[in-house]
């Protein structure tokens, strides 16, 4: 019997190189168009801005790899921000302005994120409703709740608390701000979990064929639930970083974050229908999306108002490249 296996498939080549090439291209183009582009200030600015979407997108990578989707992360972030601000403001009269209030606020954000993620996950796994439908619903619910909490306007953090809290966004060590540090830690952990733990392996197995996973004694529902819970927790962490930036939350907070996060995941080479995920790819996806906005702001080549159009074109292009890679494999 001959071994009729065609040469070892070197699959998805273009999707590995594609995003990296695009990123390099953007950086080179940026450096040529504006000398300030590679300056320390701009680089840290870009990274810090990437951090919110980036932290969420790492969680989204796991959800999508396991064959799921979460549309609610943007409004979830807004709701958590609103809740956090309300709780902290209400504690000021009793606890005074101090670090403990902020710590309580952070705990509230983490717990709320975890609870929101678990709720999505339970509805999806226990009741067997499509992830798209569940999270479309919760997206509307959280968006509406934050509008209601803010009474249609803006929730602002107590002024004194705000200055105490601000270093979490603007401060840092060795000139690297906290959001960048947290983002980096989340990415490194995410990459390790995806690449070399049983959980990451199970996510990919479930995403490529959940029946096979079930027949292989994988606890499919529990793994799926955990991906949503982890994403919720990461939304909480991103919100903790985000609130000190503006010190407020409104119905417009976190608008379209879900789309940016999903887009970053896809651009990075994770397969939208699940089965294969790449955390470092997601990071590149996030950087590409942020850099485009940044470049358009720094140069007057193209109107910044066309930011969305260019991002959209890149998302479509990324998916086209993915398909080519698959056909080749």
């Amino acid at each position, binding site marked *: *019997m001959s*071994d009729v296996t*065609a040469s070892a*498939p070197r699959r998805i080549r273009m999707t590995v190189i594609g995003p990296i090439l695009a990123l390099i291209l953007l950086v080179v183009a940026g450096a040529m168009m504006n000398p300030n582009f590679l300056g320390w200030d701009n680089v840290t600015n870009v990274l810090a801005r990437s951090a919110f979407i980036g932290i969420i997108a790492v969680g989204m990578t796991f959800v999508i790899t396991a064959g799921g989707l979460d549309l609610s992360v943007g409004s979830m972030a807004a709701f958590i921000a609103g809740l956090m601000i309300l709780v902290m403001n209400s504690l000021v009269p009793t606890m005074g302005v101090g670090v403990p209030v902020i710590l309580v606020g952070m705990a509230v954000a983490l717990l709320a994120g975890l609870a929101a993620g678990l709720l999505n996950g339970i509805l999806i796994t226990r009741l067997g409703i499509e992830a798209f439908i569940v999270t479309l619903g919760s997206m509307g619910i959280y968006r509406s709740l934050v509008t209601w909490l803010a009474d249609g306007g803006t929730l602002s953090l107590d002024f004194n608390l705000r200055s105490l809290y601000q270093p979490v966004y603007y401060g840092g060590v060795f000139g690297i701000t906290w959001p960048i540090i947290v983002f980096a830690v989340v990415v490194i952990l995410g990459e390790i979990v995806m690449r070399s733990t049983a959980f990451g392996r*199970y996510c990919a*197995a479930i995403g*490529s064929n959940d*029946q096979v996973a079930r027949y292989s004694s994988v606890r499919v529902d529990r793994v799926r639930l955990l991906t949503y819970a982890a994403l919720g927790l990461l939304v909480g962490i991103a919100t903790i970083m985000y609130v000190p930036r503006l010190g407020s939350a409104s119905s417009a907070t976190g608008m379209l974050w879900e789309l940016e996060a999903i887009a970053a995941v896809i651009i990075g080479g994770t397969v939208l229908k699940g089965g294969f995920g790449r955390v470092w790819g997601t990071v590149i996806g996030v950087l590409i999306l942020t850099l485009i906005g940044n470049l358009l702001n720094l140069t007057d080549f193209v109107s910044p108002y066309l930011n969305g159009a260019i991002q959209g074109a890149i998302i479509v292009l990324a998916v086209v490249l993915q398909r080519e890679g698959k056909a080749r494999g």
Partner: protein
Amino acid sequence: MGDAVSVLALRNVSRSFGPIEVLHGVDIALRPGRVHALIGENGAGKSTTMKIMAGYQPPSQGEVLLDGQPVTFASMGQAEAQGISMIHQEFNLAEQLTVEQNIFLGRELKRGFLLDKPAMRARTRDLLDRLECRVSPDRVVSTLSNSDKQMVEIAKALLRETRVLVMDEPTAVLTRTETAILLRQVRALREAGTAVLFTSHKLDEVEEIADDLTIMRDGRVVWTGEASLMDQHAMANAMVGREMSDLFPAKVSTPGEVALEVRSLTVPGFSRDVGFTLRQGEVLGVAGLIGSGRTETFEGLCGLRPATGDVSIFGESVRIDHPWQAQALGLCYLTEDRKTRGLLLGKGLRENLTLQALAKFDRGLIDTGAEERALDQAIADFDIRGHRGALVGNLSGGNQQKLLFAKTLLADPRIIIIDEPTRGIDIGTKQQMYVFIRKLAAEGRAIVVISSEMQEVIGLADRILVMRHGRVTGELGADATEDAIVRLAMGVAPSPEKETA
């Protein structure tokens, strides 16, 4: 008719994928009004040969001759236009369309701009009648059984006024009755002058229907000629290239303590009140017709479907609602459906092998070194052939089945339920699987083998449970006859051989 010029032939055809040549100088000629059987082990090159004949792939070297003239098919559409149709092992049907819409897909009858529905309806009825197929033309294909889907595929081919019909294992998913109908159709096509090429692993069918026979091994034609010159035994020997004396290993079992005891197991909608005991070192065969609820019963037992009943494992009463609970108790189910339930076709060998027992390799992070060693071991133990870095979907059926075996055994189950251990695999690999199964029993594991092949059940099992309509209709000893099994499976008058153990 024997001297008729070939309608479609390959002359000295070779085919390479990348650097690997899978066909070496193949010659084969189909003559009108003759049925030509192509047999060989998995990976012998049958599928590639058929694809080249049907215009799906061009040959790397050599010629395709149509009516004696060299032709090049730029696409399967061109081959179809010349009257060459191929029916695939995996169905090529639009699942959400009706039977009629599928039959006429791409060649709808029209009156002006509008579809001529009455004409298509009449034609569909006519085709289905010829096939003795009772499904309504309005049924959505996704609701059909596999055998009915096969009939729809054949109806599609019939509609095209086919001169050459290429069928890749058309009977693999059919029951005996359905196979008989199919073979009748094949004979009718033969009478009408069509040249038929078909492959099958069931050598009795080949003996029954084929006029001409070609046997392939390792990408070469090793025998070709009049089918009447070969009997089943000679075919098997030629396919494997060695003497196939004992297909089944000797049954040397010393039943130990009771490993599994099942009482009044009910899987709603599929089976009622099933009970049996299974001892260590024993192979229990489960026979029955397709649709008798065998698979569902055992999936229910292993927590893959909702089920009720009293189950005890090694004397301890247990409750199993999820497959992982079953595995924790040492009970594993090996699915009959390796492509959609058994293996991740888009992943590599290593990831598939360790998926079921990943906890063994989990030291916080996965120990990939240990995984690689486990893969080495599995490749050696189970004689898995194929490129180590290949995707599992690119392995041949036999190698996939071996990998599925290795994967399940990595979890070290004490009780193993094996559903259709040799479906769609060649005779050489079958023999290997039988040896594995007996070896597992000899190691003291308790084994259930569910199979639609009666020879297999009889040759392999120490005791045989026969199911019909979701109930156990009888239990037979190792000396059971096919006749006794059929009687119990069909519910014909209680057989005199009926025993109880």
